[in-house]
């Protein structure tokens, strides 16, 4: 399964001019792409191009079709995503492409960090791909959890909730990662959630740990795939990374990403919060 969704930096270097492959960089730091990027890679800005800019939501279907069409992505393209912060927002983009049914999406293991550290070729030239007419499928909501799903899971314990934020966010010691704006009113976690920080799934070089190592981590907190899983973080991008690992590396069938995450739950009037 891993071979179908993860590619190495070497694989990407060997496919830079493959017409079936479209490469896109998606960074937390939206200025990073302009420093230099994988030659031929398109840059997608998560703050403007991978969300609905009016309603809090993922990118609307017609906007995704426009974005992919303008990026030269065809329905049968292999899309390779990579980015900074160990692929946080590359995983966010992966999740959205899967939501809209793109068949062949992969993540470059190790992301931008590994590409830079290996001294691989960079380009500052923005590619001008031939436009395509892309047709997205309707959103597959089996991959996404909304607030009512989470409330049901809390009440009936029908799903395993996985909080992938840092331990200090889980306990409520801090409201957001140090250095980032605090965007919730209460600290803590959703009642019953298990803590499995996303960073534990990654090696020092930004690559994913082995399937066996990741499975052992989740088994250790009782998340075994025997019931549906809902992953959440603060805004849904770190949990995309964990969702990717649970669904595509471990192969658990029913895994949802709760993109409302803590900025929804932690601001909700009368929502129960558990500490520590």
């Amino acid at each position, binding site marked *: 399964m891993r071979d179908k969704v993860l590619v190495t930096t070497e694989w990407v270097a060997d496919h830079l001019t493959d017409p079936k492959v479209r490469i896109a960089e998606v960074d937390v730091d939206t200025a990073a792409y302009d420093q*230099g990027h994988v030659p031929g890679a398109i840059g997608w800005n998560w703050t403007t191009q991978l969300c609905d800019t009016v309603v809090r939501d993922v990118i609307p279907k017609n906007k995704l079709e426009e974005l992919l069409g303008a990026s030269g992505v065809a329905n049968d393209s292999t899309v390779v995503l990579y980015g900074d912060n160990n692929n946080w927002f590359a995983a966010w983009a992966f999740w959205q492409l899967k939501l809209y049914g793109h068949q062949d999406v992969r993540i470059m293991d190790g992301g931008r960090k590994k590409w*830079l*550290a290996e001294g*691989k070729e960079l380009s500052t030239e923005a590619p001008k791909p031939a436009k395509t007419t892309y047709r997205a499928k309707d959103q597959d909501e089996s991959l996404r959890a909304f607030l009512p799903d989470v409330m049901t899971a809390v009440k009936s314990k029908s799903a395993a909730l996985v909080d992938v934020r840092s331990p*200090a966010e889980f306990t409520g010691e*801090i409201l957001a*990662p*140090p*250095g980032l704006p605090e965007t919730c009113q209460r*600290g803590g976690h959703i009642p019953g959630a298990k803590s499995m920080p996303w960073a534990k799934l990654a090696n020092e070089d930004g690559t994913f740990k082995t399937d066996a190592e990741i499975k052992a981590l989740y088994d250790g907190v009782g998340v075994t795939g025997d019931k549906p899983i809902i992953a959440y973080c603060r805004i849904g991008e770190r949990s995309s990374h964990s969702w990717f690992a649970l669904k595509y590396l471990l192969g658990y069938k029913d895994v949802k990403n709760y993109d409302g995450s803590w900025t929804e739950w932690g601001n909700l009037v009368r929502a129960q919060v558990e500490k520590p």
Partner: protein
Amino acid sequence: MKAEEYTERNETIDTWPVHIVTYRIGEKYYCTIDNVDPGARFARAEGGTREDAERTALEKAKKYLGQTRRRTT
């Protein structure tokens, strides 16, 4: 063109562990600082020398970290 003189190190700023990455692309040096856990880049700077880029990024990092409060749980 490629990233050269790539370095990574960990430091502590006002009790917060941070991870500092610096490299050069062409004639510019880039420095980015992330919080070790969860690893979110929150300060970056560029400069004509490694020292310039790191000094500016560290100044930004100190400012932003100063805005993060620890709470009792």
